[in-house]
């Protein structure tokens, strides 16, 4: 089979559909997009087409504090798994490091927590961030479109509150949403003082809509919003000299004899040594779970997003919430196959690009909440059969990006969506001229470790912020609220941890909870070779894995 000729980056066979999209553009621009669905319409499309509603893809987890609750198999598999370290082989009597505040995770939430722990008076050398990859290798750095904050006169935190609740199907924890919307403008202000470069026009923020928002309150930094914020936070952590241990994920949480969080056992991925860290307070900031590839979906997430924190906290006795709900971002890259599943920001849609099927017809309001939008695209491709099929067999719909240039003027994409332009341009596709092919991709962990408004968990001394905690977004997160979440709850976690550490000292270190958990697996008659936390996915080919042996 010879390779198909590529025209403007696309195989000739896809060009016919692209021409239909171009042909209908003027009419669609004039007519405007389809109207949004009402509550009943949303419910119906979700039930029928959203991957969350496939009962057979979930099961009730059999052990632990949230036993009986439904979770995707991929998550339940990790919770119903053995520890990676044998408690008997870890010497807890002589900790290698001893700090007041230990932060597990070097992404957005972890960095924010560290900065505020220090601001609350914890000395720099008594804070430790430990991270699986590098400081800044996280989902936070790849967020693109924006961060929500109700700072304009025509908007208010109350309106923001309502938007968040509706988007989350009213399952959100009210006090967590209250915290989110209340702290939002303060976070933006804090970022301003740190020197974050938010897009501004005529002295005011450039604020846009997101899926499900009723006011334009998405602050952006081109389509590099997550990267811009993360770079600045990381730079500040470095300026202050807060210690960061890289390539050293936590393999197990430590508790003390009272059941308080007391530190962690880290694993140095390069020297293969374990490191025992004693800490008076622990902040969990381990991020998401995209690399579990739930239901076989590709993902937008970074390499290390393997839900480690969930496993560790769960074993220590923390409940999880809303784990039955998974966010699939409606627009992951569907073509070319080489970058399948990578994120195509919602900002493309808030700047005017509308999803269009293979026949050039618009079929959904472009800014529905993400779960609804994703379901609509799945329906279009699978039930209605109006998706485009790529040579590699992937189905997708068009995102009519040239509309952005028509609406806002030539040059808008290269200016406001520079990352998106470059991503496709590397493959010779020019999204200012041709539409882009998209399909839902695994994106965000809506739920997570249960927290209170002060970011505390059930475990005394354990706090959590960012994607790893749950309750803020309910069953569906809105665009721009994850960057906000990690700032708000990273801050609260850092402050609460600092407050706790000032009053409490870790007692005798123990892994008894891990042994107890193992017994729990036995009692639940779970027979498995699985071990957790996963730490890293394994993408080596089958052929290699079949012959791989560990000799050294």
């Amino acid at each position, binding site marked *: 089979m010879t390779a198909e000729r590529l025209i403007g980056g696309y195989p000739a066979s896809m060009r016919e559909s692209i021409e239909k999209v171009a042909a209908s553009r003027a009419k669609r621009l004039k007519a405007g997009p389809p109207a949004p669905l009402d509550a009943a319409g949303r419910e119906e499309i979700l039930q029928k087409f959203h991957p969350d509603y496939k009962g057979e893809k979930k099961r009730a987890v059999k052990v632990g504090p949230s036993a009986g609750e439904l979770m995707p198999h991929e998550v339940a598999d990790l919770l119903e798994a053995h520890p990676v370290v044998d408690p008997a082989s870890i010497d807890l009597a002589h900790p290698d490091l001893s700090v007041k505040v230990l932060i597990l995770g070097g992404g957005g939430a972890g960095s924010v927590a560290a900065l505020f722990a220090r601001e609350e008076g914890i000395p720099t050398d008594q804070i430790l961030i430990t991270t699986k990859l*590098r400081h800044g290798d996280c989902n936070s*750095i790849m967020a693109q479109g924006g961060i929500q904050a109700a700072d304009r006169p025509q*908007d208010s935190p109350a309106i923001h509150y*309502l938007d968040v609740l509706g988007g989350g199907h009213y399952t959100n924890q009210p006090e967590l949403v209250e915290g989110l919307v209340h702290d939002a403008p303060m976070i933006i202000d804090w970022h301003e003082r740190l020197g974050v*470069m938010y897009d501004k026009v005529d002295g005011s923020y450039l604020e846009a809509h997101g899926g499900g928002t009723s006011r334009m309150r998405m602050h952006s930094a081109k389509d590099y919003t997550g990267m811009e914020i993360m770079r600045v936070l990381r730079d500040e952590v470095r*300026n202050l000299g807060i210690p960061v241990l890289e*390539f050293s994920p936590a393999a197990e949480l430590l508790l003390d004899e009272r059941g308080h969080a007391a530190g962690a056992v880290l694993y140095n991925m390069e020297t293969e040594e374990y490191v025992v860290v004693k800490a008076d307070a622990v902040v969990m900031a381990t991020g998401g779970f995209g690399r579990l590839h739930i239901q076989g979906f590709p993902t937008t997430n970074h390499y290390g997003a393997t839900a480690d924190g969930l496993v560790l906290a769960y074993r220590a006795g923390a409940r999880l919430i809303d784990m039955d709900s998974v966010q699939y971002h409606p627009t992951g890259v569907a073509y070319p196959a080489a970058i399948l599943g990578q994120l195509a920001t919602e900002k493309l849609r*808030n700047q005017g690009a509308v999803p269009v099927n293979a026949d050039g017809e618009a079929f959904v309001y472009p800014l529905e909440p993400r779960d609804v939008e994703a379901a609509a695209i799945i329906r279009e491709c699978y039930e209605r059969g109006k998706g485009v099929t790529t040579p590699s067999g992937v189905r997708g719909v068009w995102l009519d990006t040239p509309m952005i240039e028509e609406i806002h003027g030539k040059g808008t994409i290269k200016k406001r969506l520079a990352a998106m332009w470059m991503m496709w341009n590397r493959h010779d596709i020019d999204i200012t001229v041709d539409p882009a092919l998209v399909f839902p991709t695994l994106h965000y962990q809506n739920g997570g470790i249960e927290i209170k408004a002060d970011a505390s968990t059930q475990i005394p001394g354990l706090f959590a912020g960012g994607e790893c905690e749950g309750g803020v977004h309910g069953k569906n997160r809105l665009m721009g609220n994850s960057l906000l979440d990690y700032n708000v709850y990273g801050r609260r976690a850092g402050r609460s941890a600092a407050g706790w550490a000032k009053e409490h000292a870790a007692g005798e270190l123990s892994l008894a909870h891990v042994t107890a958990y193992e017994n729990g697996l036995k009692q639940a008659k779970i027979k498995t070779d699985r071990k957790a936390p996963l730490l890293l996915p394994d993408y080596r080919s089958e052929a290699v894995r079949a012959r791989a042996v560990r000799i050294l």
Partner: protein
Amino acid sequence: MEDNKSVQLFIMGKAYQVPAGLTIMDAMEYAGYRFVRGAGCRSGFCGACATVYRKAGEYRLEFALACQEMVEDGMYLTQLPFTPAPRSEYALETLDPRENVLLQYYPEVARCVSCNTCTKSCPQDIEVMDYIQAALRGDVAKTAELSFDCIQCGLCTMRCPADIKHYHVAQLARRLYGRYQSPVPEHLTDRLEEIAAGTFDGEIEEMMAMSLDDLKRRYAKRTIEEGSE
């Protein structure tokens, strides 16, 4: 599969046969590498997978991100997962933006000879030399603007004959711009005062206590602000 070809890839000098149509990162994993260093976001935003390579038959070095660049037959590559570039420490709130702060904290910028090697090694198509030149003249705004898409992969710094740490210079410039040359909109300050005064507390508390049906009704009645900004 798009086409049935496979290509030969040289990973640190060793030949592997991998399917065509993959990124360098996917191809290396196919060949059997399991990344510890050298993989981060896998989407082109973090700079972890900086890769240096030569194409078959060519003498020039090329630079790319392994997670974005497609393999080509005969590609001869290595990765640079870390750049030992020290950064200057500063307290942003104490810096005087009227002085050439960039030259103060990174004086080696004055050694730039305009060879443009940095620009050629940038996988983000940034005009690196131009922003260093702007930094040399103390033009913070220009440095910030031109360097914005920088993912701090370090390739420029590794290649620079003058040992400039471009991405650190740029980070300082952007923070200076963000804090000192991009004023905080008044409406944000106003909103902070309102929040401190508890202006919205009543309305939110009401919703926190509201029944599900009442919330749904209120949600359905929302007016959606017009416009896409």
